[in-house]
């Protein structure tokens, strides 16, 4: 922010975010560069536990929202089952994160800590998931068009956070961060498309969207 006329405002907001009882994930989402720098410098006493807790948080959140979306209720059984079923999402995140981390020899923390911090960037998608979940409970409908279009927001937000992660935690250059993010996004989308093709095939997906929008293919 140095040199920018908005620098004092940014500094004030950052100080406020630090003083409020917020999770590190929120601070990372708002100030990725500065927050990752603080987290990199911070000692971690139980690194395995820290990583497990950080990865468990988005999984718990996904399970909670899936339970709400599909049954309009929250029970331990459904949440645990959903967590088991959808744990592959966290595994995919871990795998793509591990590849990203391995590609950066100049990283500033251990591999495990880097993966821990990688999981700190989940907030945009986690917040976005609330929209379809609450909408489903409220109306019984998914509104796929709105869901797909609104996904642009967490996508852009996450790329911005991940850019800060690459430069601060992995110690890459701006160009190196961009390259890694392009490759990472490519991998994530390839996995997602592969799952969609397994789940519905191209005809299933296009047919579903066509019916939702009343289009004749």
């Amino acid at each position: 922010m140095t040199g920018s006329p908005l620098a004092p405002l940014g500094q004030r907001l950052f100080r406020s975010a630090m003083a409020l009882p917020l999770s590190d994930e929120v601070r990372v989402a708002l100030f990725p560069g500065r927050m990752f720098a603080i987290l990199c410098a911070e000692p971690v006493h139980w690194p395995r536990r820290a990583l497990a807790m950080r990865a468990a948080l988005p999984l718990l959140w996904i399970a909670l929202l899936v339970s709400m979306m599909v049954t309009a209720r929250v029970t331990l059984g459904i949440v645990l089952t959903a967590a088991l079923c959808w744990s592959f999402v966290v595994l995919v995140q871990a795998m793509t994160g591990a590849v990203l981390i391995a590609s950066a020899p100049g990283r500033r923390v251990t591999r495990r800590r880097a993966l821990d911090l990688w999981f700190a960037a989940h907030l945009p998608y986690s917040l976005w998931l609330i929209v379809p979940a609450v909408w489903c409970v409220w109306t019984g409908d998914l509104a796929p068009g709105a869901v797909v279009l609104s996904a642009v927001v967490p996508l852009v937000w996450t790329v911005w956070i991940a850019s800060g992660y690459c430069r601060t935690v992995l110690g890459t250059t701006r160009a190196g961060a961009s390259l890694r993010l392009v490759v990472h996004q490519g991998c994530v989308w390839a996995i997602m498309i592969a799952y969609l093709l397994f789940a519905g095939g191209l005809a299933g997906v296009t047919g579903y969207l066509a019916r939702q929008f009343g289009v004749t293919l």
Partner: protein
Amino acid sequence: MAWRMAASLLLVLGAGVGTATDTLPKRSATYAGGYRLLGADFHVHGFPGDGGLAAWSMRDEARRAGIDLFANTNHNQPLTGLFAQWVSGLSEGPLVIAGEEVTSAEYHLIAVGIHARVSSDQPAVRAIEAIHAQGGVAIAAHPVSSSRGWTDEAIAMLDGAEVAHPLIEQGERQRQELMAFYERGRRLNPNLAAIGSSDVHTTPTMARCRTLLFARDLSAGAVLDAIREGRTVAMDYQGRLYGPPALVGLAAQQRPVARTDAHPGYRRFSLGVGLLGGLGVLLLGRRREMGSGVI
């Protein structure tokens, strides 16, 4: 960390109340016209695949929805359905029949009672033949005007057609299109079964539209026979019935139990508190001092 701890407790409270008040209703047999009247949903998508719930959770949801059976019909693969069918054999509860939604650009076709994949890379007539060869039944899925693969020959071979489907909530045009297809089918095949399905993927709407079957008993064989012989009535989300007038009259007299919600207040409470708690766990944490540790 006190904030996050409080949020965690809220989350546990929400899930605890939701669990304690989630009483699954018991089903009792209903009879009409000398048959057992069953509630069914023949178009349900499950996990893994394009549905949100695992097999055992889907069965619980079927009990809440007040149906006796459902067919797990994921797109172009029967594996999820076969797994769900196997799971259903392990304990008491709604009957699950394996199926597949044969999905091509030309048509969508529900195959119920199959054991191997039916390819979508063939005309509807061939796909229906393949389903029948496995002893299954073939049901036209949401056959609105955008489905171009329905020739008279294919329709005449169908065992059933979805006439009640959530699409009709989008407007009267969709309802008229489904009814027109059903009427056309009845002219070509007087035994064509009227089917009501939810096509549920990731919404809390299992059996929102449903099929009422006049079956000999609650078994896969009896259910498939009822469809083949057209002993069904479709029911839409507003309770409107579609099918042969005599059966509609019988079903109207002895309609099986619909979705039940024993404790709606507690359910909403647990949803609200659970969401609030989860959001708190996500957003709340410890205060920090600039440049040093925790305040």
